[in-house]
């Protein structure tokens, strides 16, 4: 089940990354960068397809896990990010190229691809006898190596062109955002655990009498006056 969920989550992340990189390819002018980004976007979509196909095969073998889309939480408190905000390898803001420029974007990609490469290597080692999934990871890692290489080459080229300070700033921002993200996630996970414990305690202390009272409450069946009778503008502004 864990493997299935991981594959489905990777498929989603790769697809989001592919969409964002394809969008970035449309917004940059440098023809070499456009070509690299277009190939990169195609690779990401291919990876998503490979992960998804393998997940479908696992589901067909009888492994079942609740699909991610069935969760009604739009914000994942444990991961400290919006579920829908998942994007290029998990920490690159969607549309970042338009907002930050091409050097920052390529630096982010470079750091993200290195991280993804290490992550896939780690997962590949944990697969045991599952050769089929390992083959998928191996294929993807070949592409990841190319992604790390071309982003590195471009950054080097910009450095030689006298934009070294800009490149260094972008790289440290990318690494910093990864660290900051991990720090935030740690903070939110601890807070979530603490809140869980607190709510559990509350449930058995001050909520208890309300719970006992509520058990005596018998909801009235049948038609009743609508709560939605108020239609004035004040009612529309109210969350209640």
């Amino acid at each position, binding site marked *: 089940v864990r493997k299935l969920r991981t594959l489905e989550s990777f498929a989603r992340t790769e697809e989001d990354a592919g969409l964002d990189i394809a969008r970035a390819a449309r917004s940059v002018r440098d023809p070499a960068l456009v070509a690299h980004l277009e190939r990169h976007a195609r690779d990401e979509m291919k990876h998503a397809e490979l992960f998804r196909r393998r997940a479908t095969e696992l589901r067909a073998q009888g492994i079942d896990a609740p699909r991610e889309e069935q*969760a*009604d939480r739009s914000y994942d*408190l444990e991961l400290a990010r919006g579920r829908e905000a998942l994007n290029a390898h998990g920490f690159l803001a969607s549309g970042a190229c338009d907002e930050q420029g091409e050097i920052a974007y390529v630096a982010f990609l470079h750091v993200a691809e290195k991280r993804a490469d290490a992550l896939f290597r780690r997962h590949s080692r944990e697969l045991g006898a599952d050769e089929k999934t390992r083959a998928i990871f191996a294929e993807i890692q070949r592409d990841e190596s190319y992604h790390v290489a071309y982003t590195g080459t471009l950054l080097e080229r910009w450095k030689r062109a006298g934009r070294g300070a800009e490149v260094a700033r972008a790289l440290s921002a990318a690494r910093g955002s990864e660290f900051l993200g991990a720090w935030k996630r740690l903070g939110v996970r601890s807070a979530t655990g603490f809140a869980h414990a607190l709510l*559990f305690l509350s449930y058995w202390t001050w909520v208890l009498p309300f719970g006992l009272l509520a058990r005596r409450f018998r909801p009235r*069946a049948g038609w009743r006056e609508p709560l939605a009778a108020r239609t004035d503008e004040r009612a529309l502004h109210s969350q209640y």
Partner: protein
Amino acid sequence: MHVLGISAFQRDSAAALVRDGELLAVLAEERFSRSPHEAGFPRRAVRACLARAGIEPQELDAVAFAEKPSRCFERLLQEELSRFPRSWRSFPKLQLSWLGERLWARGRLATEIGVPSNRVLFVESQRARAAWARLCSPAERTAILVSDEAREWATTTLARADGGALEVLGEVHAPHGLCRFAAESARALGLAWDR
């Protein structure tokens, strides 16, 4: 006048844009995320709606959210309490998810879309569905019956539409309701209630 309608944080999130009573765009987020029954905030659907109309978020006159979050929370809290002590596992989860985000819908909508918070309006989900049925009907005068899973208290709503006016005549409140009955029957038979 531009009004953006939003359905979010439950399955099938979507956005719709109406200009002077004319429907310009209706887009489901799942078409962008390619994730069936996408439940997240329909950010991409909203962007696409605005792009289709050729307007900026600041030009929206109102953003209508198809739910009254506080009333929804009140019902869920009541249901959790009435299941005491069997709700000891679900209670903290529900509180975290609602207190963490869903209860603060106004701020989230205003920030996500980029409109002042006083332009965010809240419509009961069943009333929104009744309005949708009315707008799809060619008849001038219609009786409308909405039956669905409860979001706020109502699980069944009877309404009368006359021209542009919609009058809610009566409601059946949770835990009673046809959909709840169907869901519980399905669950008793070992079926997934939502399939």
